[in-house]
């Protein structure tokens, strides 16, 4: 935002983001993955995960070209083993202290271990995922600094504890501002400009109204949060940029989630792939992208990064992804 005045606004155009996969195709992928995972007693899981991401990225189209996911099962399997090792070391240390009759030290180790792992997992996860994502062969990349992330994270967690959770909204926005601001798309870069205060009051309002309306407002609250994530995002390339804007309404969110729920119930869960496909189709179609970036001029600038340890740690911690 701060330098938006210098950015050229000439030749504004619309870009289309869409999800082209259908539930039937995704069902096939899910079933084949499940079958291979079952008959290999779970060993196929990293490969299944890679294939699934490949399909979801490949079905997503931006400006008439598909995204590509280049991660492989082998990379994720190696990452999985390393992640297991790291967790095993933490657990072993905890048990050692417990065995030595030092329960206080043991509990501190758990918290300290988790505390130090989360930024590491986030960092590694972004580095890996971004490097393995490309569009027209141009890789994304994450250029964040581990030390910076630790600083933001530890300051945020401390203040969140002190303020009994209130600072959580600021922590969440600070992380988002930092991480998304360090994401490169070839020679272009993202920027996110979220404000903890606005985010906090949005959630307070959403929470209170959801209770007052016996849950009905929940969908409008979700829409507000989602819009806030999208609307403050920007992609900048040289002096050109594009803006993202969410045009979904609370009513549409309500329709989406209720129908998803009904599909899940009446198909006994088999309809899950269709739910994923229609949700992605909905979300992407509701993101309006305008600006003047000439995407043909993007240049490859990011390195390959094949260590999936952080990604697997995030998977195990169920951290999810900021984007």
């Amino acid at each position, binding site marked *: 935002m701060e330098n938006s005045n210098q950015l050229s606004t000439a030749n504004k155009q619309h870009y289309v983001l869409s999800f*082209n*996969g259908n539930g*039937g*195709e995704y*069902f*096939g*992928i899910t*079933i*084949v993955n*499940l*079958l291979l995972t*079952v*008959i290999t007693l779970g060993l196929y899981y990293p490969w299944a995960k890679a*294939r699934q991401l*490949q*399909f979801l*990225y*490949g*079905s997503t189209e931006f400006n008439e*070209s*598909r995204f*590509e*996911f*280049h991660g492989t099962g082998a990379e994720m399997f190696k990452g999985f083993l390393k992640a297991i090792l790291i967790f095993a070391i933490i657990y072993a240390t905890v048990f050692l202290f417990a065995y030595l009759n030092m329960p206080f030290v043991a509990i501190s180790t758990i918290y300290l271990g988790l505390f130090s792992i989360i930024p590491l997992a986030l960092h590694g996860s972004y580095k890996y995922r971004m490097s393995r994502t*490309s*569009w*027209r*062969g*141009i*890789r994304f990349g994450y250029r964040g600094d581990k030390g910076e992330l630790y600083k933001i994270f530890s300051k945020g967690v401390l203040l969140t504890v002190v303020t009994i959770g209130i600072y959580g909204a600021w922590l969440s926005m600070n992380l988002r501002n930092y991480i998304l601001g360090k994401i490169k798309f*070839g020679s272009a870069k993202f920027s996110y400009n979220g404000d903890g205060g606005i985010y906090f009051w949005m959630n307070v309002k959403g929470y209170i109204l959801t209770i007052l309306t016996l849950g009905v407002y929940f969908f409008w609250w979700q829409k507000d949060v989602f819009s806030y994530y999208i609307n403050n995002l920007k992609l900048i390339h040289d002096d050109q940029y594009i803006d993202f804007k969410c045009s979904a309404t609370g009513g549409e969110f309500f329709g989406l989630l209720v129908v998803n729920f009904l599909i899940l119930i009446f198909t006994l869960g*088999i309809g899950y792939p269709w739910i994923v496909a229609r949700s992605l189709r909905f979300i992407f179609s509701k993101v309006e992208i305008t600006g003047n970036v000439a*995407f*043909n*001029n*993007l*240049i*490859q600038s990011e390195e*390959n990064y094949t260590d999936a340890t952080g990604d697997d740690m995030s998977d195990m911690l169920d951290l999810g992804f900021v984007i």
Partner: protein
Amino acid sequence: MDAVFYNGVSARPIDSQVSLLEEEQQLLITVDGETPILIAFSEIAISHSEKEMIVLSFGKNPNRIVEVKDESFRNQFLKCNHSGKKGITYFKLINAGWKAHALFALLILAICLCTYFYFIPFVAERAVTILPLSFDKKVGDIAFEQAIEDEEIDSAASIIMNTYLKSMMPNEYSKYHLNVVKSNELNAFALPNGEIVIYTRMLKQIKTEDELSGLLSHEISHVTNRHSMRLLCKSLSGYLLLSVMLNDVNGLMTMILDNANNLQQLSFSRGYEKEADLSGLAILERYKINPKGMIHLFEILQKENTTNLPGFLSTHPVTADRILYIKNHIENHPYAFNNHLELTLLLNKVKSQLLN
């Protein structure tokens, strides 16, 4: 075939032509004014495949990409690619159509059901060895208390019966204890702690000491083969799986103890009954007792089958098949047996006691 090529350096789309060289297992990419690119199928990864489109990628740095929007090209590429590498087999599976996928779904369901209903119980039954033998006693004690709660024990007859057992199998009798229960049911059962319960009606129906020895050897075999424990583990297999995964054998033992009360309501499978029959015959052979007694015993039980039978016999009736395999076994394993006068005397004694 028209395609769009990305050179891995810039995002600018480059119009190109692709063709499949099936013989050479290579893909040829030509761009106007540049040297054509020949790339082996084994080097090509499928980045994305959907109905009317395939995206291929190759090379690490630069990573180059070809996008072909044509259904027949996609199918042709999957069909003639025999490299077996870079997920080709996988995409052939994905491409197999919805009928195949529905079949896969059924297959997965079948695997899950088989695992749940057959494999886990199968493993659970064998996992009984992780439980100490002393635990059988605990379970048996609880079940025994429950079983005789409302029953009247004929203690005089029980004493005679225990003497009978001692002279029948002098080396092994000490692990078992017989209880005669006054009842009109034709029944007998053994518990994992070695307590064996025989109903008076059963004793009255029995004519010879060989028949009684056959019955006792059968019941004792249920205990030595830990049938009750195996059955409990099998019926609690879901829980057993969980406790093995969590390395919580104590939790499993608690769960079994909680279910010990139901022990009598569980009925043994034919497999267990056969095992008990055959181990029973081995006991009879060890102590040189006439094995024909077991046949006579089952003939008595079979006769009763026609009338309404309560208890365990009704769920696992004595079949002609069962008598047949015992007969066969006896014919194939002939041995010399003795007359056991002391057993005859003790049987008569217990029978006269019952008349009192």
